[in-house]
């Protein structure tokens, strides 16, 4: 078996033009969100002020066991911010710099499980408060931009939200959270969101969450540890949503729309694409919404964030093979700064640098993100 390693390879991260974290995170607190509630939503202030645990009361975080306890074990002089600690964008910027990343596209942390909330108006209030906080915070950071959150509970109000803030310089896209999205992303009820995003030329990012997903009860209820839940939660949500988007014909109806899948790594993508091939080939009569094979739409409009790559150290070249099976054009490096399961740029770069030319590496490490998010 031979493996040709060609010239025109980058040998060091220093040779990479630009490294972008396509999935960085803001750590807004409830106070931050509450402070930005507008007149329509000021009535929710009382809840945020009086509740000792707003997130808990809204069913936002549940986990079979505590998340990332190793963070709580920390002994260092400077406690790094925990997953839900109030560290706004400061910690994000610091970690971004420390690991050698040049720029980041920011998603929420505290409200990643927004879709868990049953009360529509709370979800909308949080959406509005977070987005206004985000836009004001991003001002202070030259190298960070962000995704507007939408509340799928109210697609029309979400569409208005996109129209309201799309022109802000630091708004790079729309975040339609992928976990507990019911119905899944391809359902016609989300059309207002897709229309608004397309009209404003904003990509749709879908970030998932890792555990305690009450709306998907089996996976959550029977998992005895966070680890057990987390292994499958992220990829399951993306696969469900991607299959739904494609087989319901969303990319056919919204050909200019771009979708970015975040936080499940990329390993599942070759398998997903081939499963879709099989479905299209063998059950074509039930997929009238797609005149062309799913793979074509994926190549045109779907992007996959690399974090977490997983433990690939034992067979590093296999990751390069997976990248080839997806196509480096559709891959976005993500660090997930400052979250506990982040990837350094080396984690991707070291695995692929010998197998792809400089252009492809630069694309994956940052240029694709620049194009997708118009940074």
């Amino acid at each position, binding site marked *: 078996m031979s493996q040709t390693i060609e010239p025109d390879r980058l040998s060091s991260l220093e040779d990479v033009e630009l490294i972008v974290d396509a999935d960085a995170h803001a750590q807004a607190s409830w106070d931050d969100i509450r402070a930005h509630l507008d007149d329509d939503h000021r009535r929710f202030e009382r809840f945020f002020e009086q509740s000792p645990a707003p997130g808990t009361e809204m069913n936002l975080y549940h986990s079979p066991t505590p998340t990332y306890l*190793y963070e709580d074990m920390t002994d260092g002089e400077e406690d790094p911010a925990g997953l839900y600690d109030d560290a706004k964008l400061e910690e994000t910027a610091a970690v971004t710099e420390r690991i050698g990343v040049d720029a980041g596209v920011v998603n929420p942390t505290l409200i990643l499980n927004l879709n868990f909330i049953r009360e529509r108006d709370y979800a909308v209030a949080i959406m509005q408060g977070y987005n206004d906080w985000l836009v004001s915070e991003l001002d202070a950071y030259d190298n960070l931009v962000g995704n507007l959150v939408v509340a799928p509970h109210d697609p029309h109000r979400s569409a208005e939200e996109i129209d309201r803030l799309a022109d802000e310089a630091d708004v790079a896209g729309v975040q339609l959270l992928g976990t507990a999205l019911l119905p899944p992303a391809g359902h016609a009820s989300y059309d207002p969101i897709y229309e608004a995003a397309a009209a404003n030329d904003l990509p749709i990012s879908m970030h998932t969450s890792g555990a305690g997903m009450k709306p998907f009860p089996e996976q959550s209820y029977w998992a005895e540890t966070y680890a057990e839940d987390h292994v499958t939660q992220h990829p399951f949500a993306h696969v469900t949503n991607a299959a739904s988007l494609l087989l319901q014909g969303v990319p056919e109806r919204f050909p200019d729309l771009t979708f970015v899948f975040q936080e499940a790594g990329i390993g599942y993508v070759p398998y997903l694409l081939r499963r879709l091939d099989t479905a299209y080939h063998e059950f074509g009569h039930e997929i009238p919404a797609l005149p062309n094979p799913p793979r074509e739409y994926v190549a045109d409009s779907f992007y996959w964030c690399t974090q977490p790559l997983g433990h690939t150290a034992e067979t590093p070249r296999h990751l390069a093979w997976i990248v080839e099976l997806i196509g480096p054009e559709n891959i976005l490096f993500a660090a997930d700064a400052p979250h506990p399961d982040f990837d350094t740029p080396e984690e991707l770069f070291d695995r692929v640098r010998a197998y792809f030319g400089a252009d492809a590496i630069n694309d994956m490490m940052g240029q694709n993100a620049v194009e997708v998010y118009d940074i």
Partner: protein
Amino acid sequence: MTERYPVADATELSEDGSRVIAEVRGQEIAVFRHDGDYYAVANYCIHQGGPLCEGALSGRMTTSEDGWDWRYDEDEKYVVCPWHGWQFDITTGRSPKDERYAVPTYDVEVDDGTVYAVR
């Protein structure tokens, strides 16, 4: 050829659980005091290069006889990397989760109130 390098005053490491991180020939090494002894471990996690020895010291979760119940062994000899939680036994350098994974360790000498790492 090995040489010994001073890394700390013995008074800095008089208590179990204490540690000092020092640079030796361009490499950061941590010396821990544990159970009356000294252990030197590279301050570099083999996972993604994090500052391993800045992490907490922890005991170890094990199972009971029947393999079902959980027990916590309080011997706090595992340093937990602050980046992603990988654990290494400071007395052997090995991961308790998979013995093939290990970080470099170094001998320690104490002489006249000074703690030396040997490398």
